[in-house]
């Protein structure tokens, strides 16, 4: 089998070079240059990066909101996965199907459904008005749309399945005899969870965190629709430079580069930290 089919990989290597590596190189070229307004030639420069301090607050907001969304997803997703794994097979299958199902509707449809709920005159405010809560508070409406909370809600709603699925698939494969052994050796419930189940489910948590954090930190549709365009995030900043109202692909590419690097560094650090933990537990 060896040797004679190595060439199978050649088209793939060419493909990857063409559609993965070269595009990133081109993006880097854009990031390190500007267009001369008169001759429209590309001039090499570092200006796109040195001026980025002005967008520090966008970076901070994006990371902050994404961290909150990821934590909320984890706080909801972990117990759900854990308890789901304890149910019977039929329940599990149904639950899995129900979690996957919304993903087959496009995420914009799901975000759109929240718009009509959170509006000032939307369903939730109408409900509050009907039960007299608004009169009680003496306000005309509760401001929900256009707030950071609405953006976080949109992220949690859209990406929660990405947290549940990997954690669940790790927990459901846990070796039952390990838990028995732990109990036999005298560990009580919480201790079994802390010392055995939780450490063993770390790989699932890590991949869930990655799958929620990365799309959250870079979103622009959610912040646009639910944040009213006021909660500018990194995704919005990039979109604005390419297809939005302030055309400057060089700056957009630079922001995308920085975001890419920061995210990769975060992931690498987190995975290293996670692996160390896991090994320590096993040893």
């Amino acid at each position, binding site marked *: *089998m060896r040797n004679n089919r190595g060439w*199978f*990989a050649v088209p*793939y290597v060419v*493909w*990857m070079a063409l*559609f*993965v*590596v*070269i*595009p990133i190189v*081109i*993006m880097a070229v854009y990031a390190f240059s500007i267009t001369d307004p008169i001759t429209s030639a590309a001039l090499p420069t570092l200006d796109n990066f040195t001026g980025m301090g*002005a967008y520090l607050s*966008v970076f901070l907001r994006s990371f902050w909101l994404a961290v909150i969304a990821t934590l909320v997803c984890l706080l*909801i997703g972990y*117990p*759900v996965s854990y308890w*789901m794994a*304890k149910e019977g097979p*039929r329940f599990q299958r*149904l639950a899995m199907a*129900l979690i996957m199902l*919304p993903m*087959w509707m*496009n*995420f*914009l*449809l799901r975000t*759109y*459904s929240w*718009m009509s*709920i959170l*509006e*000032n005159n*939307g369903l939730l405010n*109408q409900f509050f008005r009907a039960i007299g809560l608004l009169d009680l508070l003496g306000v005309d409406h509760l*401001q929900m*749309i*256009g707030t950071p909370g609405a953006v976080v809600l949109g992220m949690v*709603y859209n990406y929660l399945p990405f947290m549940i699925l990997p954690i669940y698939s790790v927990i459901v494969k846990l070796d039952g005899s390990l838990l028995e052994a732990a109990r036999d050796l005298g560990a009580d419930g919480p201790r079994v969870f802390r010392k055995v189940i939780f450490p063993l489910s770390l790989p699932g948590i890590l991949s869930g965190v990655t799958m929620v954090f*990365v*799309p959250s930190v870079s979103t622009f*549709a959610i912040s646009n*629709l639910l944040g009213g*365009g006021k909660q*500018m995030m990194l*995704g919005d*900043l*990039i979109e604005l*430079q390419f*297809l*939005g*109202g*302030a*055309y*400057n692909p060089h700056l*957009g590419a630079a922001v*995308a580069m920085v975001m*890419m690097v920061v995210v990769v560094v975060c992931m690498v650090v987190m995975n290293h930290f996670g692996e160390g933990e896991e090994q320590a537990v096993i040893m």
Partner: protein
Amino acid sequence: MKRSSRVGSRIFIGLTFLFLYLPILLLIVFSFNAGDSSAVWRGFSLDWYKALFQNRLIMESLYTTLLVSLLSTAIATAAGTFAAIGLYSLSKRRRDALLVVNDIPMMNADIVTGVSLCLFFVAFFQGWGAFAQWFNGVQSAVELPVRLTLGFGTMLLAHIAFNIPYVILNVAPKLRQMDKNLVDAAQDLGCTWMQAFWKVILPEIKPGIVSGALIAFTMSIDDFVISYFTAGSSTSTLAMRIYSMTKKRITPEVNAVSTLLFLSVLALLVLNNVREIRQERRTDRQELRGPSFFENLSMRLSSPAWKWARRGGLAAAACVFVAAVALLTGAAWSQPVVNVCSWGEYIDEDLITQFEDATGIRVNYQTAESNEALYSLLKSGGADYDVIVPSDYMISQLLEEGMLEELDYSQIPNFEKIDPRFRNLPYDPENKYTVPYTWGTMGLIYNANMVDGELDSWGALYDGRYAGSVLLINNSRDALGAALLHLGHSVNTTDEAEIREAFALISDASRRGVFQGKVMDQVFQKMEGGNAAIASYYAGDYLSMLDNQADGVDLRYVIPEEGANWFVDAMCVLKDAPHYGEAMQWINFIASTEANLANMDYIWYASPNTEALERYPAWYEAEYGEELDPELYEIMAAPAEVLERCEMYLVLPPETRALYNELWIELGV
């Protein structure tokens, strides 16, 4: 586990599902709403489903979505399987190195993948253009197309590119588990490699291929961001269509299409579950489960007797598939087309059908959000429009950069009917490039039930009393224009201090939480539904809102005392437009008196066509049997004394434009 804790856990799981499904349920309920609100129930109806099937834009985008998902899944599954087998014949070191690269598209944020692919395609097109020009110059046997643009092809490539890694990720573990001696054994026993592949490798890794394909399909159908950056202007997936709709008035047709999608996926899942449960029961009864229908089929098909039939069948299926795709795309190509880009809610859509029926030219009608967004689209190389409808100052800017083509007025006899007031304006002094489409003013719109007294100053936009209820217009020129007027400066000032002063006014209001959001066409839904009190927008759109305002909403329009902006939007043709002749026909058709009357009635923007403008009140009376309110007519077609108080935007020098861009981004920060 104790019973009590199980109840608690089930409640928690149940609540999570409620959270996941309640919004979808509401979406479905409101697809049956008789009114066009997605928050107020007005009785049951199926109207939106009927409207959906007649809505060509949504149906086309649904078709595009399914086609790109299915095609990219099929191609990526085949290519990914092939590549995975290749990877496992390499040494471990090389394989691991390649797998790291394989991870990049999965690790990267979608927006980074989208942006980098977009830049890549555009760079490639530029290189290709230069090559094709040279190639066409040195020989005349083959004519290569010089101008390539983003479209369905590039989007398909992008989808394949992000799907392949998922397929590899799913196939690789199965290959790892497979006993390598099996293939050697098969070959020792006389199998050719092809036979070994079909009979040994494929059955072993089939589960991996199936789950890889499934994930690829899910990713493809759920994608918005990568399509958004690589599809260009003329192709739209359902998600892109919805995104552009959310910036305008969303109609419950979107709810209807969501409901249909949801129900079809639900049906698939239920069918699958029922099948599995049946199998399980059978297993319970017989211990040994008989082969399922599909396994039976595949077993039979893989028996030697069926070999030729199988190959023939595969080949035939592939041919039919390719032929169908070729036919569909070919049909779309052979028909004459004109690509038009305009603004949202800016045409009576019946006109498109009328034009198509009369000329046989298919109109590919797209919309952009604002002049600035249109400019970005054009610059990023994503657009292959023929006709665009920018505003005055943007026309000057496009002309300055040599992006417009001269019009052939001999093919546009209806230009004669354009009022001299709207010819030879500063943006096109010799009138060689433009035919006016509409004109109007931008004033202050407010809900009289949500503010104190009557408003007549731009200052209301920055008034802390209306915190959370003001909508800021989402483009730098109009937003800063209103602030400049309020401060008593010209909208065309190039004085940096004045512009910064205007910006300070806006950013200060923003800090105080005055603005509910930055919107363009979302303004319709917000103002009509009483979700916001004050906005600055265009006169014609105010009249549309007036038509649709909800109970308890009392919308007013005023040209503030400080003055306002008046604008002309005109049809232009882009340089090297691929469908120049069709574009002339379209422009002439739209400039006709009948089309102008229909448009005026539908979008409420004033027409530059003298006949249409004069005849409209009489036409309205004949059509609706009631007199047109002269006050409304004056709002639509501002009389001379109002226009005198208004200023037209002129193109700003590049430094000032850069300042506008810089400040505009800073506002979001």
